[in-house]
């Protein structure tokens, strides 16, 4: 297997891996490092890649585990919510461009406060537009768990939207 073949199969996944990692580590530089580490690990095991049934799900799981390791090693889990949408980087990100709208910032913040499983399921479904089966394969969860977590996440988001709307209307 050549590097050319690796590029053909893995590089199309890089943005998805990046967004997934970003939803966990919430830092662009660290998410890029995670994608790089994921690619390096995949390249090292490239001779055995044919034994893997679902390469995309495998890669996503690898990125998830590396992201969680990174997060744990820096004890960022709880104290980064405040910084969640002030992303690092030289140039403004697409999010920063649109985050001038307070509500979008609050939505992002609210999503970051969801329990990990709910957040990851919601990310994969609503941002990556993945099917339930793809989410099951990626997170190694039964379909019932995926549905329950998605339902709870959306319910929580709806409550937040209703609350913030009534607060907004009181202010005006």
């Amino acid at each position, binding site marked *: 297997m050549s590097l050319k073949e690796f590029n053909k199969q893995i590089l199309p996944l*890089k*943005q998805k891996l990046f*967004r997934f990692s970003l939803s966990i580590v919430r830092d662009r530089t660290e998410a890029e490092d995670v994608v790089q580490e994921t690619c*390096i690990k995949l390249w090292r095991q490239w001779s055995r890649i044919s034994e893997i049934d679902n390469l995309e799900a495998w890669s996503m799981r690898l990125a998830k585990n590396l992201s969680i390791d990174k997060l744990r090693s820096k004890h960022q889990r709880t104290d980064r919510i405040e910084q969640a949408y002030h992303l690092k980087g030289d140039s403004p990100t697409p*999010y920063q461009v649109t985050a001038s709208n307070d509500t*979008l910032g609050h*939505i992002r913040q609210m999503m970051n406060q969801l329990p990990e499983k709910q957040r990851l399921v919601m990310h994969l479904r609503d941002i990556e537009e993945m099917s339930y089966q793809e989410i099951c394969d990626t997170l190694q969860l039964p379909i019932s768990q995926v549905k329950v977590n998605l339902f709870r996440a959306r319910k929580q988001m709806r409550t937040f939207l209703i609350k913030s709307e009534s607060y907004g209307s009181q202010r005006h």
Partner: protein
Amino acid sequence: MDRKDIEILLDRYFEGLSTLREEAQLRDYFSRENVDPELAPYQNLFRHFQTARKERLSEEFDERLMQQLSQIEPERTRSRRLWPVLARVAAVLLLAVGVWWFYPHPAPATQQAGIDWSKYEPESPEEAYRITRMALRKVSGEIKEGASKAAREMDKFQEVTRYFKN
């Protein structure tokens, strides 16, 4: 799609019942500028999803990654890497067989003499009946003796009780 249709889709969405197609319809509706004011709060949620989907790696990422990968040799296949393990297992087995072969084996213990019960087997049904009857009679005698002994002890006990009452 009118507002009512969107509300139905939104309910399905928040109940976790919507399909990917229905969710695409919602994204499409909320990406417009002229969204019904009543539904405006939900527009931000779908806008957030669309914005998050536009997140991209930096432009230098590919170059940096290729530089790294070109310096790394992928691991060899499992079948090749299994050889050293198999060689080690074979060496251990060979050693174990060698040790067993050269170690002095103790002679097996002599068999203990047993009781030849066949000598005591009754030879005819009549003999078996006679032996059984004898055994039952003996058991019956033992029981009878036990009962009379218990009666004697009871008499003694009653006598002692009478003495204390008086």
